[in-house]
């Protein structure tokens, strides 16, 4: 609704003046959905699911259509035409109404797969309160003393590796959407969604003041 209102306002102001400034807002709602999608695949993925390295087990069928791709090129065409039309009418507001957060890039998939594999090892340390989630979308050691001694070095390693992945993930999402300046917002949304969606009851997270709280 809000966006639509802005659209109308923009269209109206176009008629009055030809020069307007358009602010592109961070699409928080879309970011939440995107974060949920990634968090779900990190948590639920595990094992071999989502592994794209598997070679095809059976050869493709031998009988196939003749030269030429069967591909729907009509739909993008229509979309494009509609886009052009919209552009002509309300050129600058176009971007605003379509604003979305795209998390489907090979980089994002590769990082997600890496986090997914590691989550298999990290989960029990979240469960036992050894590690927790931070307000800047990373993870931190909360009480290493409650891990068995041989596990403590492992925990340190997993936390360092996971944070390297998490930082790379937020950058990759910002980069994918060609909005490097969104990285902090993306990080914030992920931090919230990890607590609200990813964390099991009993997991620890840091609030904005840096205090540990339990979900």
């Amino acid at each position: 609704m809000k966006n639509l209102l802005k659209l109308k306002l923009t269209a109206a102001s176009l008629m009055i003046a030809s020069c307007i400034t358009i602010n592109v807002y961070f699409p928080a709602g879309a970011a939440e959905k995107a974060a949920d999608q990634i968090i779900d695949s990190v948590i639920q993925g595990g094992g071999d699911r989502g592994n794209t390295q598997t070679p095809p087990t059976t050869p493709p069928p031998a009988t196939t259509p003749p030269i030429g791709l069967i591909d729907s090129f009509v739909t993008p065409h229509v979309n494009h035409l509609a886009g052009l039309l919209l552009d002509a009418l309300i050129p600058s507001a176009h971007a605003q109404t379509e604003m979305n957060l795209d998390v489907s890039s090979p980089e994002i998939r590769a990082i997600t797969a890496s986090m997914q594999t590691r989550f298999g090892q990290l989960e029990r340390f979240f469960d036992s309160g050894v590690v927790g989630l931070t307000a800047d979308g990373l993870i931190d050691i909360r009480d290493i003393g409650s891990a068995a001694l041989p596990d403590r070095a492992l925990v340190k390693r997993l936390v360092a590796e996971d944070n390297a992945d998490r930082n790379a993930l937020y950058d990759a999402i910002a980069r994918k959407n060609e909005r490097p300046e969104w990285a902090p917002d993306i990080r914030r949304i992920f931090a919230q969604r990890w607590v609200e969606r990813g964390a099991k009851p009993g997991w620890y997270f840091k609030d904005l003041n840096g205090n540990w709280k339990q979900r």
Partner: protein
Amino acid sequence: MARFYRPSSPARLGIAAALLLTPQVAPAIDRLTLRIERIETPAAVLKDATLKVSIDPKTTAPRGSLSIGSTPVGPIALNLALRDAGSQGFIFAGDDFEFAGGEVGFSGSLIGRRWTFAITANAISSEALLQLSKPFVDVPEGFYAQGRLDTLLQLAGRTDAQLPENANLEFRGSELGFSNAAGDFAAEGIGLDARLGLSADATGKIKIAGYIKSEQGEALFDTAYLKLASHPTRIGFEGELEPNGLNIGLLEIKQEGMISATASARVAQPGKLLDTPLDLRKLKIESAAFTLNELRFPAVYTTYLQTALAGSSLDALESSGRIAGTLLIRDNNPVAGDLRLDDLSLRDSKGLFFFDRLRGQVSWVPEDQEPLEPSALMWDAGGIYEVRGGTSSLRLVLRGMSASLLEPVRLPVFDGAINVQELRVTDAGSPNMQVQFTGEIEPISMSEISQAFGWPELGGFVTGRIPRVEFKDNTLIFGGDLEAEMFDGLVRGSDIKLSDPLGRWPRLSADLTIENLDLETLTSTLEFGAITGRIDGKVDNLELFAWAPVSFDAWLRTPDDDNSRKRISVDAINSIANVGGSAGSGVASALQMGALRFFSRYSYRQLAIRCVLEDDVCRLSGAPIADNRYYLLEGAGVPRVDIIGNSGRIQWSELLRQVAWQIETGGTFSVQ
């Protein structure tokens, strides 16, 4: 109320206790009772102490009792027995009493001006010992100890000296543990045998000597995790206490199967030793000279380095071999070293790089010095990713935080080599780190490269020039173009940047120009099918993430001025049609029907393939005809074969998988 002045060592407490028992107090008195309301010592406050001494009328030997109403470990009461050691003095001993959960007994003597004092404590709580040591050692908040220790403290001295002449402290225990508040400086199940001896000479110098031995338990020091049963550890030391530090003449460190080293060192602590509680965290190694007899891999790596390197590309190494040599430390930092590498092999388990049997001498000197001789290294094999190199050697000058190659070096790669003309690293490890590199590629067979990378076997050679390379902001920037001559043509990489080269997610960006490749050489060894003629191309905005292509805009097409003979085989037509989305044996069988079956090769006017990769989708196109149709292959002459594509979107990962499958099986594939 008696109040002891704060003694500067536990030893002074011993003297004070001995003086109390001196029989010279009053020989004529046969009964003495001394009540002390409060005794303040650095270790504890004692209240309500009563010492009673009486002379046994029969033996004339003094007997007595001591009771203290309040100590940190509860009330203490014990009997004392004093024995006359002839005319010169006394020997005394106390009954065993309970202390800190264990049993404590003491004995002493005073003969002439010489005195001795000994405390044995069996099975006392290490936590209580820790509390008692607080005045002398700065124990961090939250630090705790567990387990029981047998301890022995022996002191000996002269009544006219302020400090005892000798002190001997021994600890023995099993199942000991400790931890700091954070839990990352901790140990469990430790078996310990330790001794510390101090002795003062006539000039007042205090010598120390001792050892710590442990063969069981496990310990964690930040990122280093040590299993003592696997690496039984003995640390021996000899040295001298100085007013504000410790001069260690000989330190011997032996961790079986891992480290054997000796060292001399000077350790400083802020404040005057013995007067200020010792804070281990504030100790500074002013200088140390280590002689490493042996550092054995993989133990050193897995125990001390691996976790510290987590998140970098060095966190998953398989290693073997040994390092020996010397290492100098100033102000806590290594500043120079002379290391001998003995068959050191390093292999990244994720396949990033490897070195086999690295050996030689590394001589590293401070910035302002010249090494006596340069570092010389040689290895049997080494490589990055699948680029494998054979035996090679190089000579380097390592000075401070910089390294430079002494002379050009030839690094064999497959059947060719990379000749490095210049390699210079300055400010290594700092944000200002700079790397300068120039080199040349001696012809390397494409067949070897393609085999290594699991590509279809390609013919021809790679040769070229590697321009100036710089490292800045965690990014390798190629200052010029990287050129490789291959397939009788030229491939040029420009604007090459590699960010986070040693991190988990390296990203490479570059633009490639492909000039005038000979298709016959390129395709001669491929299952793809044979093509003659030339090809030009461009790959704009190529981006590899973790070494997999994620986006590019790639063009391959017949050059406008290509006058060479342009022919294409049925197999190749079929392959191109497959890439273009047609599939199966349809094309091949169509070309083998009727009159066409007499032709195994067809002439063509142009080949044109464009793939714009984005989001794992390759938008395929070629030379536009009209609408959304394009030529991938425009035929020429009679009979003429064209391959015409429509708007095509191909799943990139699917395409790679299918191509790999085709190469393996020689079969056909379809892309939808």
